[in-house]
């Protein structure tokens, strides 16, 4: 103890404080904290002071009752809890401060409308005025690589494949024409603007595949290192063992299962390796063919139905050329297939009102859905406005020029829009029309109107339907 009794001249005993600078009341104690940052609830200084006092008190009551020791321990626990609560509130504050709901929505809007954007990740920059810009393409790829690395980091916070899959499925399938969700994805992976949604989604899918591939490779490596059969395979397969085993596991026939069983036991039989095409895909290539090649070849990756002759690419209107470049960039294997194509190549130059129609078949309804949504979002197509206009015309009313103008005023851009076929959801009807030809477009669609009207009630196949379709495929 630092407290010493002194006895003065035989009178009464007097006690004085020696070497102890602890205030005698809570109020005085609190005053010691005046120097702390006013914005902080519990500052580093607070904690330092507490610790100092705690240590002194701990030393002081070592020989005292266990009641005091328990009380002191209780105070220390309380301090830990309060510090933890303070840390949590500080982190919550960061989230609140970083949320900029209105400003961010506005800036995204501005970014959407602006031709000039700081982001190099803008596919439009690769094709200024329809011409390929090599430097812009290189910058595009460079920025894409950075964003991909960030996304990898993001995906690393997920514990398993199921979580990653859920994350991607939620992000991809719950968009329902909601631009806010799209922007959330773009922000999440660091894009400042969605210039090409198809590309963004393709990118996400490739990253998911990369993840799956990395995990499978790790499993195979473990199998080769730890199992007798694996060690034997490694001796004669050498450095190529992982690739060779992966190929063998993907091969048709019983060999794959035998290998899985020997390498991983019964659990191995459940390993899914039937995504050979996906896993063998070069993960670095996001755009299937270099843009230059796509530009030169026109229909490079696209398959036309046998009874359709591809129109002369160079003579197509620029809007259509750009559309084909986009279709090329999102094509996978032989999809999308062009089932019907009536080009406006002639009418565009001659007539005021004209349109082109394409019927595209995608590999899965989901792809068709993503494409449809992408086209409608890009063109800011007002589906509800279109539906009401269609109803209006179907009821036989207001087919006058005035009503067309009125609908134009109501913001009914008719440049491009896409409609999924209800009977066959992997098929998309795509219409390109010049802005003054809305009525003509609608009239041209009248033949299909009934079935299209039905589509509007459900607009797009629901998630359940997509799942069913997917499971049928499986």
């Amino acid at each position, binding site marked *: *103890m630092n*407290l010493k*009794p002194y*006895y003065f001249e035989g009178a009464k*005993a007097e*006690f004085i404080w020696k070497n102890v600078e*602890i*205030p*005698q*009341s*809570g*109020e*005085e*104690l*609190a005053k010691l*904290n005046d120097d702390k940052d006013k914005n902080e*609830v*519990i500052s580093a200084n*607070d904690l330092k002071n*507490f610790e100092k*006092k*705690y240590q*002194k*008190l701990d030393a*002081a*009551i070592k020989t*005292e009752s266990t009641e*005091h020791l328990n*009380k*002191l321990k209780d*105070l220390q626990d*309380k*301090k830990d809890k*309060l510090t933890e*609560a*303070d840390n*949590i*509130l500080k*982190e*919550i*504050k*960061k*989230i*609140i401060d*970083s*949320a900029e*709901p*209105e400003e961010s929505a506005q800036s995204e809007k501005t970014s959407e409308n602006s031709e000039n954007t700081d982001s190099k990740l803008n596919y439009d920059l690769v094709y200024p005025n329809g011409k390929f810009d090599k430097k812009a393409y290189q910058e595009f790829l460079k920025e894409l690589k950075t964003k991909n690395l960030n996304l990898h*980091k*993001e995906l*690393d*916070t*997920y514990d398993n494949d199921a*979580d990653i899959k859920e*994350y991607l499925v*939620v*992000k991809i399938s719950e968009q329902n024409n909601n631009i806010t969700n799209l922007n*959330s994805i773009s*922000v*999440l992976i660091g894009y400042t603007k969605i210039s090409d949604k198809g590309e963004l989604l393709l990118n996400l899918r490739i990253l998911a595949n990369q993840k799956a591939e990395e995990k499978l490779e790790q499993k195979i490596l473990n199998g080769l290192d730890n199992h007798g059969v694996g060690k034997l395979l490694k001796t004669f397969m050498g450095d190529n063992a992982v690739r060779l085993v992966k190929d063998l596991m993907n091969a048709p026939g019983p060999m794959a299962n035998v290998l899985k069983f020997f390498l991983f036991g019964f659990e191995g039989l459940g390993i899914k390796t039937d995504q050979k095409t996906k896993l063998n895909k070069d993960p670095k290539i996001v755009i299937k063919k270099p843009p230059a090649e796509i530009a030169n070849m026109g229909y490079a990756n696209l398959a036309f139905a046998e009874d359709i002759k591809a129109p002369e690419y160079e003579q197509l209107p620029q809007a259509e050329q750009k559309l084909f470049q986009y279709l090329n960039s999102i094509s996978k294997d032989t999809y999308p297939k062009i089932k019907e194509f009536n080009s406006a190549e002639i009418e565009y130059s001659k007539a005021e009102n004209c349109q082109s129609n394409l019927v595209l078949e995608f590999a899965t309804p989901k792809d068709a859905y993503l494409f449809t949504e992408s086209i409608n979002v890009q063109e800011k197509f007002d589906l509800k406005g279109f539906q009401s206009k269609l109803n209006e015309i179907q009821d036989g009313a207001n087919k006058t020029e005035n009503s067309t103008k009125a609908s134009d005023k109501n913001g009914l851009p008719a440049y491009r829009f896409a409609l999924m076929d209800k009977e066959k959801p992997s098929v998309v009807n795509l219409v390109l029309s010049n802005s003054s030809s809305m009525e003509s477009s609608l009239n041209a669609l009248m033949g299909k109107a009934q079935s299209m009207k039905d589509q509007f009630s459900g607009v797009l196949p629901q998630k359940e339907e997509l799942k069913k379709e997917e499971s049928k495929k499986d």
Partner: protein
Amino acid sequence: MNKPDLLKAIKNHPQLSPEQKAWWIEKIPNLSQGLQEFLMEVLSIQTKEDQEKMQQKLSSMQSDLKNSWQKLQNELANLYQKVENESQNAEFQSFLKQNDL
């Protein structure tokens, strides 16, 4: 609202860095129900009004925390006082005894 929902909201939140997400994923299982609900509200901020409301709620919680911290400091000081008093008494009694007073 349940923990999986909250975890999903954290994982999908666009403004959080991977490090922040990892930090929250570790903390969430031990958060009280009240804090979990508050966090969920914070993650769902849509408008300026939401943001201001959450700021007010946070200030109120921080003020409560400040009071609790103050209380803890008082308790620590009081305990010190008590120990000192008892110690003084014991030493004084011993002094009296030693000196036959």
